[in-house]
């Protein structure tokens, strides 16, 4: 038991140790290599770090509960883009234009509704057909992206609304709007996964789906709610991000699913399901952003960033594997 606890601690604390190591490394390395005069661990820079973690972070938090379920969602990038398109396009609808600033919350509502709907489509297919979520969302990743293109041809959808931008750029208590949304989402999801029936059921289903079915947990609707949740969060991420940027390209959000999954895995959530934590994912998201920022800070180029992030992902997997090994007498299968 003691050993197990210690390993558990290493696993859950690992990501924060990694973040600390990154901070130390980049601070020191930045001293020698950086062209910038600014210290890496400048408080303003750290606040920006949190803000910049938000777009992928909010999605990754939702991905955590999906992966605790033992599922995966590859379509989040496309949901992100389509929600953004709806957000910006709806602002130019005549009746919305007539509403003035009151149209803004409504536009948010439309965008979130879009995410919820797309999530529900995924969830419904997973529930009703019983097809593996990987395949379902691989398909809808293409399909939803097709919808993005259909909506506005191949043109970007734009609507620069300065009220919206000002809101998104605001800083309350030093934290940016996006950071508040990231933290808020994390708090809510932390609460859901650790304190609520739905959250505990998510673990139960990921751990042993048959057992959950036998115990009367309605697995299908449960999946559906989680897909709705991640659809909502992908849309929320889009809403927060595009409020500030005001224009979406039809290709935006591509590869976000891979980044979100990377963050979740770095945070210690198991792909097989049944194990993982919101706090870990938050750590994973921050670790990735820190890495990108840090490598930029010391002047590394694109190829190095790709190489390093890929290899770190594999290294983390390797370490995790070492930690879960039972020792020499383990069955060699």
């Amino acid at each position: 038991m003691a050993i197990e606890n210690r390993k558990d601690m290493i696993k859950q604390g690992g990501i924060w140790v990694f973040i600390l190591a990154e901070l130390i490394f980049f601070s020191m390395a930045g001293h020698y290599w950086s062209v910038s005069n600014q210290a890496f661990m400048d408080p303003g820079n750290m606040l920006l770090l949190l803000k910049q973690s938000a777009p992928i972070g909010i999605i990754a938090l939702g991905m955590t509960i999906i992966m605790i379920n033992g599922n995966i969602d590859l379509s989040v990038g496309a949901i992100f883009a389509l929600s953004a398109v709806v957000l910006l396009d709806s602002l130019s609808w005549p009746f919305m234009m007539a509403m003035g600033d009151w149209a803004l919350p409504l536009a948010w509502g439309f965008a979130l509704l879009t995410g919820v709907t797309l999530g529900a489509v995924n969830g419904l297919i997973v529930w009703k057909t019983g097809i593996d979520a990987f395949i379902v969302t691989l398909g809808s990743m293409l399909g939803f992206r097709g919808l993005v293109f259909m909506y506005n041809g191949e043109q970007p959808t734009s609507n620069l609304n300065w009220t919206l931008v000002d809101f998104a750029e605001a800083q309350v208590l030093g934290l940016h709007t996006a950071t508040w949304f990231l933290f808020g989402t994390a708090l809510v999801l932390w609460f859901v996964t650790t304190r609520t029936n739905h959250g505990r059921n998510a673990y139960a289903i990921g751990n042993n789906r048959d057992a959950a079915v036998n115990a009367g947990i309605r697995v299908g609707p449960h999946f559906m709610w989680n897909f709705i949740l991640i659809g909502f969060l992908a849309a929320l991420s889009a809403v927060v991000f595009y409020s500030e940027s005001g224009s979406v390209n039809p290709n935006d959000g591509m590869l976000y699913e891979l980044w979100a999954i990377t963050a979740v895995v770095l945070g210690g959530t198991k792909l097989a399901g049944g194990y993982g934590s919101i706090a870990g994912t938050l750590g994973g998201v921050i670790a990735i952003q820190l890495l990108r920022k840090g490598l930029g800070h010391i002047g590394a180029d694109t190829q190095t960033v790709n190489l390093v992030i890929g290899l770190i992902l594999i290294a983390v997997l390797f370490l995790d594997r070492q930690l879960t090994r039972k020792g020499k007498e383990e069955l060699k299968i």
Partner: protein
Amino acid sequence: MKNTMKAALACTTAMFGSAAAAQTMTIGITQNNVGVDSYQTTYERAFIAAAEANPDVNAIVLDAGGDVARQLAQIEDLIQQQVDAIIIWPTNGEAVIPAVRRAHNAGIPVVVTNSNIAEQGFDFISSFSGPDNVTQGSRAAEIMCERFTELGIEDEARVVQISGQPGYTTAIERQQGFDERLPEVCPNVTLVATQPGDWNRERSQQVMEAFLIQYDDIDGVYAGDDNMGIGALNAARAAGREGITFVGATNFAVGYDAMEAGDYWGSIYQSPVDDAEAALQTAIDILNGEEVPFLNYFDTPKITQDNMGDFTKPVF
């Protein structure tokens, strides 16, 4: 709260060698997507080379990898690092405007390079340095039309277009220029189809293969850049279709070679080195308080088999 932080920032800045920074200017650049094609890579190299050659310039070179969110983050970082000027190669001509405004509000001049931002953002930038893509599109239409006239098919020719990556300003502008200009100069030429080739040679080749089967009669192909143009040329060659006039833009080395070989008719000569150097120079000029035109286009002339001797082969 804010003030103390700013003070703290000032302190750290002072500690880390502001003595040396007295004369030098720190210029940050965030590029669109280095490594996606040779143009952008050559641009980055030329930019770094130009910055290194200038002892007064300290360059922070970043790459957004085609991701808007990453580019916005990089702009924020550059503002945070209090650079003297920011050069942006936008991933999306509109999405960067709020970030540009923040740089503007922070008192940092912004130069947009290669592909312009939308008009709403013009208030916040000091200058645009790059090619005039609408004109490039128009010029391509003119090259095509002149060639058809030479061949005597200006009243019946059918053209297909392979555009750049959807949503990308350069692609949109070139297509716009071509679409508008072609009927003006050659009113009887039909543009039968347009499909995006995503700045990708392979994608473009596939699109062209489909065009060739779909349309028995194709006389001209306009591609958003030579990379795609060569993809289309490869497709036509593989299908054994001859006599098609290929016109591209952003003359790549492959395009130049194909022109020399007589397979490819014309293009627009645009040097990434000029592009990069112009952008850096614009930024430097602004910092030195010099007057720069708001739309600082560098010239991108027509190049065809007829006049290619006047141009050196592109290095990318």
